């Protein structure tokens, strides 16, 4: 399939706030085997200067993957999700995510290319608090594999 390059530069409306829960951070940290007390114990996190438990570096993907449905499910862009493969992933932090954050995502399509029958789509998701404080920028490149 072919992706429409005219989508480059398109920005989607901000997503509904995602409430970062302490138990969700603990659950995620446990699932990846991250045992540092700052992911589990608010007192340990406070000792590092954070208001509550600190999320591991890839935690924001929970928020941004949900937010990216805006793009993946945009009927005009027409991505076939069953053919999607994850290409690249990047996180650029202003500060770590902590429990209690209410995060809003703004998705922008940065790049669309078609090569060798495959479509390549790079999105940037700017994640900030509901108060407008930037937290992390997340880039994701997906490959939409062509029909064999």
């Amino acid at each position, binding site marked *: 399939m072919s992706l429409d390059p005219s989508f480059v530069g398109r920005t989607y409306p901000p997503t509904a706030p995602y409430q970062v829960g302490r138990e*969700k951070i603990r*659950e*995620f940290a*446990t*699932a*990846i*085997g*991250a045992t*540092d007390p*700052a*992911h589990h114990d608010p007192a340990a996190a406070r000792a*590092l200067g*954070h208001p509550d438990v*600190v999320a*591991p*570096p*890839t935690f924001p*993907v*929970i928020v941004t*993957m*949900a937010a990216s449905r805006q793009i993946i499910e945009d009927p005009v862009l027409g991505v076939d999700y*069953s053919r999607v*493969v*994850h*290409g*690249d*992933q*990047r*996180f*650029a*932090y202003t500060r*770590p995510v902590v429990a209690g954050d209410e995060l809003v995502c703004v998705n922008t399509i940065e790049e669309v290319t078609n090569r060798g029958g495959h479509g390549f789509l790079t999105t940037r998701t700017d994640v900030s608090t509901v108060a407008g404080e930037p937290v992390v920028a997340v*880039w994701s490149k997906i490959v939409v594999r062509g029909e064999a």
Partner: protein
Amino acid sequence: MELPTQTFRVTRADLVRYAGASGDFNPIHWSDRTATKVGLPGVIAHGMFTMALVGRAVTTWAGAPDAVVDFNVRFTRPVVVPDTDEGTEVEVSAVVKEVTDDGLTRLDITATCLGEKVLSQARATVRTPR
């Protein structure tokens, strides 16, 4: 400077737990039937699970759970996870490329499974440990 290699065991149970915690329930990460139907050798780890293990390695090297400033990878080869008690292993190593005057350390990271690289262009910038 080379940093000490860290090894992470990955089993099917880890993938199920990660699916639940992350909300990524793509069946190629738990169903051999689905994985082989789309041309994979079998169930593969979530790319983001592999990246999370690399993140653990990075924060361990940095000595702080909140040290990561920038982190990027390219997924080049799937981590196939057999349905055995042992599963498979991901090995993560890194070299320090640069220590900047403003307190940042840049790492070039290598992640392998069964001797083959599973990531390319894997880099992290962390606050330099004191």
